[in-house]
């Protein structure tokens, strides 16, 4: 008896950070298996952190990811300060938020212009995009540079910045040095507005997913470094309660651990979740820009994440300008923090979503235990669920088109595979 099988397979996913693969198999016209495989070699950060001094955590964890090192540094320093029972305010808090704005800009613009936009136009990369949309690509590069310059000015360099320490900064950036960035950031804000408008014109595949969104939520601001962990299904917990409500588990096809909400299942973190759970925390003007771009107060179409990223980029430029306008140099530039025989937890909003870390520090100031849960680990199961929907609905498509659609649907979530320590590999099989 003849069984008809069809496989779509991508052994090495392009335009994502890190190494992964995709595998989709149909059998007798029915979708049978979908796998996002992560084959990135494991690097064992949680083990390497044991017996290191607590103050080394921000420099070491930065090396988990070259695209979002600030996110790792921010979760690390806040976890150590939480362990020591401290919460820092004033200029140190503002500077951290400003530094994070730089990373959101750099990472979101990289993803929108160089990794994701080519999908919507059927192109292999931004170099080809530059042939037809030269000014657009140059605008993206200049925006990305503005984000990187902000990180450099505060952090010393764009990748693995050196100025972040537990308690604050090694040296406070001078007011004049930040003021000097204002004209370029103002240009960037205008360019981000044009970016929202452009991304909204891209042809969007229709798809509405019933995600459980998870993000931070802060009483007064769009979340970056602080807040409670909330979800669209009613979860509302302090960050330190993460271990009671979430769990990690291992699947054979991934060197990155998956995560789920206990007794409920997969969820989504990242721009769609942040936006949908915190729309009311955006300034009115940016809310209007989002509405004009066709977004509602929530967004459940993963392909529209590119528009949401543009809205968040606009917010990051806007917030950076707001912080610089009132910035005063903190003196001293850091507070003394000495965690001993305690455990601390923190979660911050990396460009790709919630990044949770916790540390137990011994009486000698050395890390006894470390726990790190990157956003892409948490999103893996949801990315696979999206792939099921996309493959199901795209069954009539030719293999090449279906493969392109599947890859695009993975890129919707801007997976950072080095972070997740998985490898991604795509195969579609039809029988």
């Amino acid at each position, binding site marked *: 008896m003849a069984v008809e099988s069809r496989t779509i397979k991508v052994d090495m996913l392009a335009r994502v950070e890190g190494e992964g693969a995709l595998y989709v198999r149909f059998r007798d016209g029915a979708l049978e298996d979908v796998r996002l495989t992560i084959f990135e*070699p494991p690097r064992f950060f949680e083990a*390497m952190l044991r017996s290191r001094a607590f103050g080394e955590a921000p420099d070491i964890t930065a090396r988990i990811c070259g695209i979002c090192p600030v996110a790792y540094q921010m979760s690390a320093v806040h976890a150590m300060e939480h362990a020591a029972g401290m919460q820092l305010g004033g200029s140190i808090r503002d500077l951290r938020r400003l530094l994070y704005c730089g990373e959101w800009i750099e990472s979101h613009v990289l993803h929108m212009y160089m990794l994701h936009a080519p999908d919507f136009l059927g192109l292999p990369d931004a170099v080809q995009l530059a042939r037809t949309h030269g000014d657009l690509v140059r605008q993206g590069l200049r925006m990305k540079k503005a984000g990187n310059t902000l990180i450099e000015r505060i952090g010393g360099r764009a990748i693995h910045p050196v100025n972040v320490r537990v308690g604050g900064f090694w040296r406070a950036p001078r007011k004049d040095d930040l003021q000097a960035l204002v004209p370029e950031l103002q240009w960037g804000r205008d360019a981000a507005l044009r970016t929202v408008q452009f991304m909204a014109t891209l042809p969007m595949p229709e798809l509405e997913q019933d995600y459980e969104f998870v993000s931070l939520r802060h009483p007064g601001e769009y979340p970056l470094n602080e807040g409670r962990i909330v979800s669209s299904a009613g979860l509302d917990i302090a960050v330190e309660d993460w271990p009671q409500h979430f769990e990690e588990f291992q699947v054979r096809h991934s060197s990155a651990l998956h995560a789920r909400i206990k007794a409920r299942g997969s969820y989504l973190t990242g721009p769609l979740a942040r936006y949908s759970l915190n729309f009311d925390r955006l300034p009115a003007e940016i809310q209007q820009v989002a509405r004009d771009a066709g977004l509602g107060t929530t967004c459940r179409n993963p392909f529209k994440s590119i528009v949401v990223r543009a809205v968040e980029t606009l917010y990051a430029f806007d917030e950076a300008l707001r912080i610089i306008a009132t910035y005063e140099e903190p003196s001293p530039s850091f507070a003394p923090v000495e965690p001993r025989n305690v455990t601390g937890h923190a979660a911050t909003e990396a460009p790709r979503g919630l990044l949770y870390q916790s540390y137990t520090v011994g009486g000698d100031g050395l890390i006894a235990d470390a726990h790190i849960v990157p956003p892409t680990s948490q999103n893996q199961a949801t990315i696979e669920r999206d792939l099921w929907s996309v493959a199901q609905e795209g069954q009539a498509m030719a293999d090449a088109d279906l493969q392109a659609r599947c890859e695009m649907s993975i890129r919707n979530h801007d997976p950072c595979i080095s972070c997740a320590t998985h490898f991604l590999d795509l195969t579609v099989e039809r029988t």
Partner: protein
Amino acid sequence: MSEQLKTLAVWKFASCDGCQLSILDCEDELLTLVGAIRIANFTEASSAVIDGPYDLSLVEGSITTAHDAERIREVRAQSHFLMTIGACATAGGIQALRNFSDVNEFRRIVYARPDYIDTLATSTPIAQHVKVDFELRGCPIDKRQLLETLSAFLNRRKPVIPTESVCTECKRRGNPCVMVIDGTACLGPVTQAGCGAICPAYARGCYGCFGPMESPNTAPLAARLEQLGLDHAAVRRVFRTFNAGAAAFRAEGERHGG
């Protein structure tokens, strides 16, 4: 026209992606660069892949799996000129900390099913596996050095990359010496220049992310660090970060207890 352009391939092994991201971080030069060299295989940036051989391969990351030990040989076979970029590829990176521990213990700490995880006991630099034509240091690399090396390659000249210590960059930048002023532990005297002496400019000690300079004199520095109050284990940690596997730093770490 494009037939005459040299071809470039970018490869990733165990790493954070930061060094290859440095290529995309050359925002002002990127469009000029792609007019001067043909990007033939760079999966982070493009889904269009042209088969090898390649004129120039940039290799990021260290070798930590049996599969990668095979893959780097294939990369070498397809590459006329192979350049490693960053501390992982040139010294094994932060993940070389496993070289001083029991990797099975590491596997158990992180994974509930350690048996699913395929890994080698060590993280080793690319040059330990295949011939490397040029090494670019840094965690991450410096993008000015990257552009200098690419330009040198395209113009068939030797790249101008200093092998002196970070101290010389500090002097040129006019940084006060953090070790002299307030006794801050600093690896600058034994670390290769190239970053621009960023850490001392931000009032902290150099942590050695460009690896040991040529003929570094690590023992007197370690002795000075102990005088400044660092205990044996703290001195060991100073030498064991992102270039822990580089010979001079490894040896000094071992002199301080294992």
